């Protein structure tokens, strides 16, 4: 991990939503870090020392199954923060926190966030609101994973990353996408070929470019 000297921490929308006076208390403890593709921040059960507020980076929380399979159960981008909610009590990682899209993030040590949080009711409210939104999103993901076809889930995933990254070209392989969705690689290949034929995305090796966002929004499920 590379530590960078200058940072606009409020590129992250959650930090941007914090009142200026509260942010002033957090700022001395925030550091900018560069997250690398597929970098593992925490393994299941690890004690987590930092909370990450991504800028253009995207972090996935991935559950590891006994048969070696993976499935993504949470995504954290510029709209939020990784490892914030589950960890306030035990600080133990629920699953593997890994970097899905590389880029910068601000991070803060738990103990510093806790110090500021305990004295700032407004900050506590902002974090509670985010926690509720994240839980609502998780309930939706549970439903989506159980009942929706791979094509709709694939569109949903591409759109959710597109929202977070803010760029049209996303560095993604079919293998990685299949792991995140908990499906076979061939299923992803068939779906992305269909989406490309329909003119919604353009594929090249190791990346997917969104060419028709509105079209993807029509193909996606309600989730």
């Amino acid at each position, binding site marked *: 991990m590379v530590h960078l000297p200058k940072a606009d921490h409020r590129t992250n929308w959650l930090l941007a939503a914090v009142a200026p006076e509260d942010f002033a208390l957090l700022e001395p403890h925030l550091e900018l870090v560069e997250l690398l593709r597929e970098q593992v921040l925490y393994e299941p059960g690890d004690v987590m020392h930092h909370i990450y507020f991504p800028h253009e980076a995207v972090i996935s929380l991935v559950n590891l199954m006994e048969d070696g399979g993976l499935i993504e159960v949470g995504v954290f981008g510029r709209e939020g923060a990784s490892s914030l909610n589950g960890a306030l009590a035990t600080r133990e990682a629920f699953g593997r926190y890994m970097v899905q899209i590389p880029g910068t993030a601000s991070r803060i040590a738990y103990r510093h966030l806790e110090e500021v949080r305990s004295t700032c009711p407004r900050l506590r409210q902002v974090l509670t609101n985010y926690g509720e939104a994240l839980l609502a999103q998780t309930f939706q993901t549970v439903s989506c994973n159980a009942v929706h*076809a*791979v*094509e709709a889930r694939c569109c949903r995933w591409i759109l959710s990353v597109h929202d977070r990254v803010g760029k049209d070209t996303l560095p993604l*392989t*079919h*293998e990685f996408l299949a792991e995140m969705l908990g*499906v*076979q*690689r*061939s*299923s992803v*290949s*068939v779906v992305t*070929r*269909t989406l490309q034929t329909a003119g919604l995305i353009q594929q090249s*090796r190791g990346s997917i470019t969104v060419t028709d966002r509105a079209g993807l929004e029509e193909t996606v499920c309600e989730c």
Partner: protein
Amino acid sequence: LEKSVPRFYFDVREGNGFTCDDVGVEFDTLDAAKFAAATAAAEIGRDRLPKGDTREVTIEVKDEKGCLLLTVTVAMTVRETARALT
């Protein structure tokens, strides 16, 4: 000398669609590749077959030289009786 792990390529045919696999994936044994192909065919079939625009999904497993090693096909048949048609 370490023997390299073989790479397998899964091409998918469903209806008029053909998805060519030019990346491939490593498996220790042909059996492992066969199981993965069967799982993938079943998964693709689950989403595509009930829609009715295709009645068969086939995965062709090829080796690094492009030679066909095995195929896995899942198919769906829907038959209506005379009574259903009245």
